[in-house]
């Protein structure tokens, strides 16, 4: 466990020194611009626009970091051969992989927390108060973080056995497919032969369901989110990440490094 933490700590330090957190400046500027502009539109929807835009920005920026850094974390170490000296230490390859994952999730947590603080400041500026129903925005941010963790796990899996470019494409592709799994399941009701129906059903359960994490509409309109969904999404993320990371560790443990 301690060896995983050593790698995680260094991964976080790498992200900070490689200026990954500089995106926060962009987010801050976006929030300031948004707060100023939103103040000029109708009183009823200013909060809705603010929350929607803020959550979208948090999600998009997080996704870009998760995909690009997630892929780069392992492939860069393989390409630059920094791994050779690291793996010569008493460290299992799976420990290295888990350490990298934990470090990147920690980076995304810090990043997302900072953006969340920025969003709440902007909301305070627009509405002049934070009310109890605004906690739903926090839940939405938590879901974004869960989603980003899963994206990181997938990015790491793909980077273990393919080139960085393909890993980015696969992760991005799988994310987009995962957003529309509900539509894939609904296809079963149309006229399809039984084999295709079974295959689509299998696929809709096998692929990561990113649609579950999207509660932006509810958050923007202050509707409450059921506790069961929070529990479901948390467990789903933990189990899916464990599964993806196990496969990644299996592939990585037998991989010939250059």
């Amino acid at each position, binding site marked *: 466990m301690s060896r995983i933490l050593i790698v995680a700590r260094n991964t976080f330090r790498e992200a900070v020194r490689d200026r990954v957190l500089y995106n926060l400046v962009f987010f801050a500027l976006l929030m300031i611009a948004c707060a100023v502009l939103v103040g000029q539109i109708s009183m009823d929807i200013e909060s809705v626009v603010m929350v929607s835009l803020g959550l979208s920005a948090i999600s998009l920026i997080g996704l870009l970091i998760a995909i690009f850094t997630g892929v780069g974390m392992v492939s860069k170490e393989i390409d630059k*051969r920094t791994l*050779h*000296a690291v793996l010569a230490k*008493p460290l299992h390859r799976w420990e290295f992989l888990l350490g990298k994952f934990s470090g990147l999730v920690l980076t995304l947590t810090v990043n997302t927390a900072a953006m969340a603080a920025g969003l709440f400041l902007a909301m305070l500026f627009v509405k002049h108060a934070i009310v109890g129903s605004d906690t739903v925005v926090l839940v939405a941010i938590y879901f974004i973080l869960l989603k980003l963790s899963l994206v990181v796990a997938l990015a790491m899996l793909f980077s273990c056995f393919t080139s960085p470019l393909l890993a980015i494409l696969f992760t991005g592709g799988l994310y987009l497919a995962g957003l529309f799994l509900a539509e894939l399941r609904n296809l079963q009701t149309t006229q399809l032969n039984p084999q295709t129906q079974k295959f689509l059903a299998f696929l809709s359960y096998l692929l990561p369901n990113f649609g579950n994490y999207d509660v932006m509409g509810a958050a923007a309109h202050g509707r409450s989110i059921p506790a069961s969904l929070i529990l479901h999404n948390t467990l789903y993320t933990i189990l899916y990440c464990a599964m993806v990371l196990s496969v990644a560790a299996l592939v990585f443990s037998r991989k010939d490094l250059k």
Partner: protein
Amino acid sequence: MKKRIADALFYFRVYVFAPQTAWAIDDAKRISKNETMTAPAIETQNLSKQYPHGFLHLKKKTSLQGLTMQVQSGEVFGFLGPNGAGKSTTIKLLMGIIFPTAGTAQILGKPVSDVSMHRDIGYLPEQPYFYDYLTAAEVLDYFGRFHGFSAAERGERVQKVLKTVALETAGKIQLRKYSKGMLQRVGLAQAILHDPKLVILDEPMSGLDPVGRREVRDIILELKNAGKTILFSTHILSDAETLCDRVGVIAGGKLRGVGAPGSIVGVQATGMEIVFELAESAVNAQQILAKATRSGMNFRISVIEGELYAALGELRAAGAKIISVTQIKPTLEDYFLELVGQDRAQAAAIEVSGK
């Protein structure tokens, strides 16, 4: 002395009157001697590596073929071979960076898949590269954490090894600003940070200037004096000749010879070299000088040992002044070049015959 006489009398009695007991004693001594001998530091059995290549990875390229060798504890073993011979492949297999297609390897009595033995191994990768966003001291501190050292101990060890590799003043500079030679020194520092029993160095002299090479040679000698086992690969033969107890020569993925640098090439002299001065106007000068090569004011000729006196007689008759007569012994370089030459000739023959 008394003890020796008593031992001799004892063995005489045993051998003459009870030969079976004598064999039993000999066997017991042999077994106990073997048991007390430590296991080889490195042992490989038929270690082989093939890489898939081609568009669909259907073709196989053999990088290492049936490597069986041992590196004994406490020795400095040089792994020699031209570029692409299989040196780095072997070292990467030993360090678990790549996996063998066939065969086994053990380090300090444990299979190479057991990462716990990495506690006792220091490894310098070929052309080492480390996290360039860290300083040398931070990288060493990071690596020290995997060995479970406390913060105080890490600090002490880091300062000590930085001094050993002459980087104590550059320890706080980020590695992205380091030269190739400095990175090589950091690599060496992280390899010896945890005071390992076995040090594996892949091309430790590469990228270093003459001063740096000398310093690395001194470090290797210090490690040897401290009783460490050292395996290093190189194609700088003079380093191998001066540092190694034994060398293994690898070419074309196969081990071609193992032994002490002197014995591997054969101590048999291949001829004699005579250095002399001779006026070009001397009698028979043209005939003698046609066989000689000039270097400065002197000439030199090489003859086989049996013809030495005849050649000296001829030179004396011509009025030459003999400067020196030296035995010509093959060097490691000759041996090395011969092997590489054989490989190239073989490759050319295969190409010509179209096989």
